[in-house]
């Protein structure tokens, strides 16, 4: 409100354009300042720290970190943890994003075709989205629980008692799948909602015209629906890529990165290095590689999307 008074003065003296310029700068400034101080600076600072020997004791004593000749990076590559973590991250991202898109699209298409109670379903299906991440982890841990869990019971019923100890999160081969199921559960609702809003932009009369011309459902879907939804799809998929690249609390709560490193993504590895081993420099090196990888993935993704656009 102070600015209101401060603005009155210059408005009389300055011309309109200059005034607008100052006003708009003043409006954007607080946001810019907070984003810079709490996001941009820390990110740049963490990239710098990735080249230093910087541990928790440096924070306590206030001693600056020492340049250590890329040791954080060489140690990571030689330690044999980095490459598996990259593999796990990519597998998780690709798997969850694909499954999420297919299921979300299926649900959106069904809700957009006149099913009964579509509005009601659209509203209740959003419920998993508002469940806090930690709680969704707990919900699925309870279902996956090795002794009393529901999944173990179902598996033992389906196999006729042959498999009596199915514990999805305790087996290195299936743990990532278990986490992915929980991630899907939380993310499908938003994907569906956004795709549904895209579907509503597809012109009705065009679909009708195609029906009259005798186009099949599949033909209509790929020739009319998909092209009209291109921008929404591109946004939904890139949001999903970013979200799953960053996924941390879910994996951390459900498996902590185990068993045997089978769910250790870059997020888990960097957190472990930085806040469990208290080696902030090494953690920063992981996040730097992680950011580079994410930039590459998003870049490739945009390239593919743009190329398809031109065809």
């Amino acid at each position, binding site marked *: 409100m102070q600015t*209101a008074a401060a*603005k*009155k003065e210059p408005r009389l003296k300055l011309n309109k354009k200059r005034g607008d*310029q100052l*006003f*708009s700068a*003043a*409006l*954007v400034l607080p*946001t810019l300042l*907070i*984003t810079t101080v*709490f*996001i*941009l*600076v*820390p*990110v740049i*600072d*963490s990239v710098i*720290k990735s080249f230093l020997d910087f541990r928790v004791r440096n*924070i306590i004593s206030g001693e600056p970190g020492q340049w250590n000749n890329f040791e954080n990076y060489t140690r990571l590559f030689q330690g044999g943890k980095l490459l598996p973590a990259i593999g796990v991250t990519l597998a998780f991202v690709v798997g969850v994003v694909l499954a999420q898109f297919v*299921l979300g699209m*299926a649900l959106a298409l*069904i*809700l957009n075709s006149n*099913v009964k109670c579509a509005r009601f379903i659209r*509203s*209740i*299906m*959003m*419920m*998993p989205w*508002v*469940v*806090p991440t930690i*709680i969704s982890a*707990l*919900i699925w841990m*309870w*279902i996956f629980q090795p002794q*009393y869990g529901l999944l173990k*019971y179902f598996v033992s019923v389906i196999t006729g008692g042959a498999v009596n100890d199915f514990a999805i999160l305790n087996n290195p081969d299936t743990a990532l799948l278990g986490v992915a199921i929980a991630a899907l*559960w939380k993310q499908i609702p938003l994907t569906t*909602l*956004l795709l549904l809003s895209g579907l509503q932009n597809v012109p009705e009369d065009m679909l009708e015209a195609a029906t009259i011309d005798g186009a099949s459902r599949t033909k209509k879907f790929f020739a009319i629906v998909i092209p009209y939804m291109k921008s929404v799809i591109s*946004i939904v998929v890139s949001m999903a890529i970013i979200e799953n*690249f960053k996924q*941390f*609390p879910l994996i951390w*709560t459900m498996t902590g990165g185990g068993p045997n490193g089978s769910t250790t993504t*870059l*997020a888990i590895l*960097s957190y472990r290095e930085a*806040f469990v081993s208290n080696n*902030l420099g090494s953690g*920063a090196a992981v*996040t730097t590689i*992680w*950011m580079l990888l994410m930039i590459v993935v998003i870049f490739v993704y945009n390239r593919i999307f743009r190329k398809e656009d031109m065809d």
Partner: protein
Amino acid sequence: MKKQEFALSVVKYVILSIILLFLLFPLYWVLITSFKTNMEAYRSVPTFIPDAPTIESYIKLFTENNEFFVYYKNNFIVSGATALVTTVLAILAGYGLSRFHFKWNGWVMALLLSSQMFPVVSRMISLYDLMNKMHLINTHVGLIFALTAAMLPFTVMLMASFFDGVPRAVEEAAYVDGATRMQVLWRIVTPLVKPGMLAAAIYAFLMTWDDYLHAVTLIQDDSLRTMSAGVAMRYLGELSYDWSLINTISIVGTLPMLILFFFFQKYMVKGLVAGAVKG
């Protein structure tokens, strides 16, 4: 042709039921487990409707494990404050970006969009150090600032897209009447974007309510912890979980969000679409 239509609609409803079962059954399961005793919850053949429903674990949560409510209260404080600050800043910046087109707009947008991409852990590594230097570590104020920064990109985009929908003629009339720019913003334009404001506030509240990583690194004092961090630290021991209690916590922790969402659903849906598609 008729037969084919029928078969298609059967397939449609089957797929719909499977997906809905996947999305909704886990919530039902948690809800009924919270009304079971541990004895019943641990039965080898699970009961799908509680045999002897009881509110024992709710009573236990209120009486024995009431540290939970300290975390719960802190979560309300932090989420509420973050939502408020975020919404005010998003109104200002959103209006600035939507109404005035200067050459820096592109840079501001780029900064906001890219800041959404950076992993939180990467920020935490130096934020821990930075907050320490600013004496904001272990305080709600520091946590609120960090979270506001995380919420701003999306909410600014959201507000900007709502302001885009307000015709300029409305403002020009007010300027002719001698209103200042600030008056135009607060008295004339902002009331027209109330749905956007609500959507931004609820989005920020929901997302902050969900925060774990910020709280777990920036807060060490148990009495200042927020819900996710507190629950993870206190109730998730390595071996023995009290599952009735955990399920009760899940219900109590989710309830405010469900109520908020269903109450403001109309605005939320519009806002989510506006914020995402603009960004």
